[in-house]
């Protein structure tokens, strides 16, 4: 192969963020990237989650403090985001293991199961939102 040909050839491989933005991703790709995002989110929030758990369980005083702490609207929002992360990661992970045993690998089924991940996780998140912001 000559120099000129190899130099004019477009480079493939690692994409930059600006390249990614132009891509219209299929639904399973959104499930996949959000699986990663939600996992990273929970990883970074781990000490905060443990702190909340500590306050809720250590003593009756800390329990009351916990109740006050999580009644703030911003904390409710943080907890809601973490709840979404958990639900999405849970059901996307379930879908992963289902594909590990070669179930639903064909495109139409993969689209349906990825839609199911969104529907179930977002419905449960909505339920948590209603509970947090006092609808029931």
């Amino acid at each position, binding site marked *: 192969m000559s120099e000129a040909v190899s130099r004019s050839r477009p480079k493939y491989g690692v994409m930059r963020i600006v390249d990614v933005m132009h891509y219209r991703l299929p639904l399973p790709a959104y499930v996949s990237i959000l699986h*990663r995002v939600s996992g*990273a989110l929970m*990883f970074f929030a*781990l000490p905060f989650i*443990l702190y909340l*758990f*500590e306050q*809720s*369980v*250590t003593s009756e005083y800390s329990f009351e403090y916990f109740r006050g702490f999580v009644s703030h609207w911003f904390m409710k929002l943080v907890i809601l985001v973490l709840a979404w992360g958990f639900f999405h990661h849970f059901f996307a992970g379930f879908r992963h293991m289902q594909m590990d045993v070669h179930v639903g690998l064909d495109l139409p089924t993969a689209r349906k199961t990825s839609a199911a991940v969104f529907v179930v996780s977002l419905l449960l998140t909505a339920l948590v939102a209603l509970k947090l912001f006092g609808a029931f």
Partner: protein
Amino acid sequence: MAKENIGPKRLVVGAHYGLFDFLAQRITALVMAVYTVVLLVLFFTATEFSYQGWAGLFANQWFKLITFATVLSLLYHAWVGMRNIWMDYIKPMAVRLTLHALTVLWLVACAAYAAQILWRV
């Protein structure tokens, strides 16, 4: 790979552990999923929605142990996942190695914190 993987070219970061971590990620996920279901069932079948009821659950030694086993599963699961993320997006080896080390420290510290919380109830 074998010939190139010697001396200064030796691979020091990456998921070159084959099947083990893949399986570990799945098994730890199952452990956490089962724990979630157990916790939810215990929570929603509880008769006493109070501090006493909630802390009473974690006061049992068997439940502390199950919870801590789940925390350790989470540690390993999160390690595999975060390592995958660093490997995909962080290319300079020194930066990646540092992030790997920090990830391990972060997770081990979190597990220690969880143990401290659990055995104080």
